[in-house]
Each structure stands twice: as C-alpha cells, then as structure tokens.
C-alpha cells in the first residue's frame, strides 16, 4: 500500500476533528491536578451545590467537586481505553498472525474459539464476573483485554492471509527465511494500517465498556469515572442538578468516543482505499 497513513488521516476532515478532540481529552486528563482544584474523592459537607466560583460545576451528593471529577474521569477513561487497546492488540496480533501463518488444526481450533467469543456479548460476561469478584481497575483492564482481542484477531488474520500470498514474501522464503523473520520484517510493517484501525476500535470499545459498567454500578469505588458520575446523577434527576452533573460527563464521554470514531473512519480508508471520501466528479 503506497498510501501514507499519517497523510491520510491528516487530510481527512473527520480525521482531523477526531485527532483534535482526542488531543484535547488527553491534555485535560494530564492537566487534571492543575486544572482541577480539589481532590475529586474528597467528600465534604457542601453537598449538591450549584456551579459557583469555588466549584465550577458544583458539587455532588457527597460534596465532591464535579469539575475535578470530570477531569480525573478523563484519566480513567483514557487509561483504561489505551491499556485495553494495547493489551488487546498484542493478543490479537499474536493469535491473528500465528493462525494465518501456521494454519492447519491450530488455525481451525483457535478460529472456532474466536468466533465463539465474538458472539457472546462482552458486557454480560463482565457483569457476571463482577457479581462474584469485585473488580479493581487492573482486573477490569485484564478482563476487558481478554474479551476484546478476538474481533481484532479475525481482521488481522484475514489481512495476514492475503499478505502471505504476496510476491515479496515468496521471494524471502526462497532465500531461506524462517517464519519468524518473515513475520517481523515483511508482514508486520504491512499490517500497520489495520493494526491502527483495530487499535482504535479496541480503545473505543474499552472506553464505552468502562463507562457503561461504571454506570451499572460495577467498578472500583475508589476510582473516579464518568460512568459512575452519571449513575449517581441519575438518582437525583428530579432536581435541577442534572444540568451540571449529568450532562458534562455524558458529553465528555460522547465526545471522546466520537473523536475515536472519526479517527477510525479516516484510518479505515487506508486499509480500503475505495472508501476514501472523494468529492463527486
């Protein structure tokens, strides 16, 4: 593929917007201690305050500063998102490439398992596990990674299979190159576009899952999460507080996911050039 990944994303309008949003979120997350004025977990007696000079978004039902919570929530979402994205991608690469290159019984068995995983909805499984084991953040990350690698593996395997047939790989074999060498030097570099796409998908899924599960009340109570914020705020929806308590985390969450969607849209065009957004002739 002669299409330059970076160029493709840079030149696509949705891509640019997506990157901008994501950068904003990352900056906010990183600057949380600076921009937020309070420890987000510090409870106080000033509960359910409206937005004021001291508390830009007011306080929640146990007196915690909502603005600080919003910023730290970004950290949680992004941290979980990227960790799961990376871990999941590594597992996807491992299984996707190996099944494509090794083939045979190994391929068939692993693919059946992959398909089985894909069919079972992830959230349900996490709910079940969470019912028995109180998940810490780390456990959640591991769990989500284990559940999300199968869909990436399918795509990577497909791409590897088609790369396997290409000419320069046959040539390498003719030089006596081994499987590992071929995988490292020839296949992996050509896989970069689809790896990026699958990574973004993974991050997006994870951000969504983490927030959703927190919303259901499953999650580490010591961790600030947008999902938890929305869960708590919902209980008080009969009051006016929803304006500054419910909406901001929801908007922040949605923006993050939208940003990731836009980036993935631009990245998809690299993998399948037919999809590029051309203007009408």
């Amino acid at each position, binding site marked *: 593929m002669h299409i330059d990944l970076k160029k493709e994303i840079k030149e696509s309008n949705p891509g640019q917007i997506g990157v901008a949003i994501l950068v904003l979120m990352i900056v906010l997350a990183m600057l949380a201690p600076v921009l937020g004025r309070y420890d987000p977990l510090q409870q106080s007696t000033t509960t359910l305050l409206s937005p004021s000079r001291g508390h830009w978004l007011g306080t929640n039902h146990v007196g915690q500063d909502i603005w600080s919570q919003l910023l730290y929530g970004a950290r949680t979402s992004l941290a979980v998102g990227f960790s799961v994205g990376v871990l999941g991608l590594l597992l996807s690469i491992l299984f996707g490439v190996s099944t494509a290159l090794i083939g045979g019984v190994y391929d068939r068995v692993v693919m059946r398992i992959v*398909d089985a995983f894909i069919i*079972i909805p992830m959230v349900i499984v996490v709910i079940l596990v*969470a019912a028995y084991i109180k998940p810490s953040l780390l456990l959640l990350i591991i769990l989500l990674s284990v559940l999300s690698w199968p869909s990436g593996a399918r795509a990577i395997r497909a791409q590897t299979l088609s790369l396997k047939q290409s000419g320069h790989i046959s040539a390498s074999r003719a030089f006596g190159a081994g499987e590992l060498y071929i995988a490292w030097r020839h296949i992996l570099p050509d896989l970069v576009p689809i790896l990026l796409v699958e990574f973004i998908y993974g991050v997006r899924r994870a951000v969504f899952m983490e927030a959703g599960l927190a919303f259901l009340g499953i999650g580490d109570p010591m961790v600030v999460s947008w999902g938890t914020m929305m869960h708590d705020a919902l209980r008080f*929806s009969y009051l006016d507080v*929803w304006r500054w308590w419910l*909406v901001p985390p929801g908007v922040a969450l949605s923006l993050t996911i939208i940003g990731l969607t836009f980036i993935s849209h631009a990245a998809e065009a690299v993998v399948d050039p037919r999809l590029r957004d051309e203007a009408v002739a």
Partner: protein
Amino acid sequence: MKAIKNNLVTYGIAFLLILALNFILPRMMPGNPLTAIYGGEAMIAMTPELKAHLIERFALDKPLWEQFGAYFLALLRGDLGFSYYYNAPALKVILGHLPWTLLLVGSSLVLSTVLGIVLGIESGWRRGTKTDRTMLAGLMSLNGFPDFFLGMVLVLIFGVMLRVFPLAGALTPYSGLSGLPLVLDVLKHMVLPVMALTLAHLAGGYLLTRNTMITVLKAPFMLTAKAKGLSEKVLKYRHAGRNSMLPVITMTGIWLGRVVTGALFVELVFAYPGVGQLTYQALLSRDYPVIQGIFLMVAISVLIANFLVDLLYPKIDPRVSHAH
C-alpha cells in the same frame, strides 16, 4: 451446508463456554459453595435441612465433573435456582421481566436495521455530495453517544422539558387500562427508550450499507439496469440496495448482542421493568441465581439468534445457496 456445520461447532463451543463460566465462577469463590451459589443473605434464610437437600441435589460435595452433570441436568429441567430476594424460582422471575426487554430489543433492532439500510442506501447513492457528507458526519457522531446517555438526553428534552413523553416505566401505574388505551399507553412509554436504542445503533447498519453501496454502484449490472431505463427508485432499491443489504443481514446476529446490552443500560435510565432493571437489582442484592440465570438466557438467546440468521442468509443471497 459446510458453513452451517462450521458454525454449529462454533455455537457448540460458545454454549460450552457459557455453561462453563456460569459453573466455574461460584465454585471458584472461597468458602462454602452454597453461599457462593445462593448468596450470603439467602443462606440466612435457609434451614439446615434445606441446605443439606441442596448440597445433595447439586452434588456440591462430590467431584467437579459430577457437579457439572448435576448442574446440566438441572438446567435441562429449567431449574435456574431460587431467588431468595423475590422468593420465587429464578426462571419465573426472569421470565416475568423478559417480555418488556423483548419489546424494546425487538423494536429497536428492527428499526435500527431497516432505517440504517435505507439511510445507507440513500447516502451511498449520493456519495460525496453535501447530503451524504452531512449524514455521514451526523451518524458517526450519533454513534459516539452511548445509548444510556442518549436515553438521558432524550428524557431530559422530551420528558422533563417538553413533557411530551413519560419519564419512566413501561406503563402508567395503577391506571387500570385495558384494550386499545393500554396498548397506546405502552407505546407511549416505549417511544423514548426505543428511540434511544435505535439512534445509538443506527450507525452500524448505515455505515456498512453505505460502504457496500459504494462498491455495488461500480458493478457492471448497475449500468445494465440504468440502460434498461429503470427509474431511480428501482435502481436504488431493487438493484443496488438489494445487493448492498447482504452484509448487514450477516451482522444482525452480532448486533443483536449489542442491542441487548444496550437495553440493559437504557432500562436503567427509564426505570423500565425489563431484564436490565432486574440485573441491576440482582447485582445490588447479590442475588446470584438470578444473575446467573440472566447471563445464561441472554447469552443463549444471542446464540440462537445468530444461528437463525445463518439459516436465513442463504435464502436471501442466491450466490450462497446455489453455489456452482
């Protein structure tokens, strides 16, 4: 046929995984397996005789594989355990909540798929124009909103601010309605949650259809159809659309899983008395039999739905059923 055989193996594996997970988890917990299965609070309510009876019934003092046998047999009998919170068999509890969820999930799935296909066809037909780009941007953005947040926004706008639709529940409580007014009441309560679910999952079908349209429109038979002097509508739907729908149908089974999980969240937002609400309650009260039962039912329903889609697909795509 071979494809179906392959898939059966997959479904078999999935089924076993589901059963295994359900089985292993409680038995992995430290302490008394009975507590793990029934929850601490239930234990308090049980008499020693009942405990002994249960231990025997589920072979809890026997080796693991015998336990699995007992467990499996119990499942076949429809015995999902007993919910001490609701004081009824878990199966009955779940079945009581199920119809509402089915209502939501069914309507949303159908609506989002059909609407997604139509919008995808129209967008793909006009690819590159302002309408297309707007729809694309719009739907991608819409896709970013988690269904529960979307639900919340809808409630706030239409329920609280505009007061057009009710805020919560599946019916107006204690209204004593029946017949047509009852149906209307149910529908009125359904509008917002279904809208939330539909809008949140619209983009999947839309994007896939649009992408397929882009490829299909370049195919030779589209030129042939145009040469036949067929109207734009016929070209769009009978020729391009019919060919573009196929990948979407394949995905329906998987999307069902997503809509079902979405419904769990949305029910919470709308206090809709379906399985989602039930899950939340069961989590709070550690009602393990119910949680397990829900997991089992949902996972297996999704499995069956996928299987049905596999059976259905060859009827739509002649290239598969009448392969050379």
